[in-house]
């Protein structure tokens, strides 16, 4: 059993209601910072950095490179200085630090062996430690402090067919923004349905996506409901970065509340 208990930090249009979910649908969370490319960074330094993380994260995963190319639609790939994304993972393989020139993220992911959800406070604390390790290493190597461009938090939720929904006509039971068409309409039954909403806030963005797919681990049909919130910090001081991260968390938490129905949240409150 896992519990999510999160309190809003500011008044919300639906009141001061708490999110207390005994069975949250979350399967992964990611928090961290995107920063400007570091002068003097290269793969060998990234490899040596693992030595600093290794006592806590002894396993290594090589991950596909993240391409920051939304705007503009091209990016430069320097073949003399290849970029690699690495994941330093703890023994349980649930906690992981993702590092690439330009980003540091901490992920928690659910596994069969370790299914208990880790709350934001716990993941934030891990990120603070990871970030301190990273910055200490930069100082040791006489490299400049990173200039953080945005703070980011993502939740990835899996809504499983036959548990959370039966067919796409049921989505209005889960999502406040989904109405669909009555089955009696000339369109018949929906084969598939998805939505992707980006909100521009005063300080950043929230991207909410419902995307149907298959979970390779068990072949279950799921709707992946992801919420990504990013905020641009005013400086790269730790205090400002973690304040912005808290804002990302609050924005994502609100979006979860606003995009899901009472009925769905009541279902996730039940002890299974």
């Amino acid at each position, binding site marked *: 059993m896992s519990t999510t208990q999160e309190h809003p930090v500011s008044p919300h249009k639906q009141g001061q209601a708490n999110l207390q979910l005994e069975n949250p649908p979350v399967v992964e969370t990611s928090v961290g910072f995107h920063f400007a490319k570091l002068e003097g960074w290269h793969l060998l330094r990234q490899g040596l950095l693992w030595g600093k993380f290794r006592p806590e994260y002894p396993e290594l995963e090589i991950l596909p490179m993240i391409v920051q190319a939304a705007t503009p639609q091209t*990016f430069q*790939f320097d*073949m003399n200085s290849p970029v690699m994304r690495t*994941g330093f993972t703890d023994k349980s393989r649930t906690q992981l630090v993702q590092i690439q020139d330009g980003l540091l993220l901490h992920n928690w992911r659910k596994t069969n062996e370790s299914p208990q959800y880790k709350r934001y406070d716990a993941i934030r604390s891990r990120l603070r430690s990871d970030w301190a390790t990273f910055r200490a290493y930069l100082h040791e190597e006489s490299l400049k402090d990173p200039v953080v461009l945005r703070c980011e938090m993502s939740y990835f939720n899996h809504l499983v067919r036959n548990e959370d929904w039966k067919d796409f006509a049921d989505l209005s039971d889960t999502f406040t923004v989904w109405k669909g068409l009555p089955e009696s309409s000339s369109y018949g039954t929906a084969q598939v349905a998805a939505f992707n909403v980006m909100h521009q806030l005063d300080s950043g963005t929230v991207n909410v996506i419902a995307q149907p797919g298959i979970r390779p681990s068990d072949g279950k049909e799921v709707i992946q409901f992801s919420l990504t919130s990013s905020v641009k910090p005013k400086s790269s001081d730790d205090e400002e970065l973690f304040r912005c991260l808290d804002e990302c968390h609050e924005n994502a938490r609100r979006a979860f509340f606003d995009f899901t129905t009472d009925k769905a949240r009541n279902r996730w409150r039940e002890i299974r």
Partner: protein
Amino acid sequence: MSATILVNPSTIDQARWSQLVPFSPVDSASWVPSLLWRLRSLEASGRNIPGVGDLTIATATADRVRRLLTIIPPHLVPEPTLAPFSGGGIALILNIGDRELTLTAYPDHNDFVFMTTNENDEVVDEGILAADQTERLSDVITALLTPQAR
């Protein structure tokens, strides 16, 4: 040396950049949603076809077929055929030209049977694979996609 790479914005899924938990979206090929819909129909009401038998498949059997779909490169193969048979089993049939790969899932079995035939309907590969033998299955699919030397 550097290269400028053009990125098609429609292929960018920014929200999933940081994701590590595997997920296979249904929009990977146009035929995937309709195939999944047919699987759901067979789970829900595949029964009682006169003269044929009960063609309902159990959810666990359908799950095994869906796992297969996450291994098959959907953009490289045409829409497979679903062939349920009496007793709760189902075959997924892929055709590339005159070559054919049949993957059969049986109820209450965690593995599946595969058979590849060539242009002359000769069996070129067959066997039983566990659901987690993804590398071996990938090899079987790659062999199907690779034209044979004459």
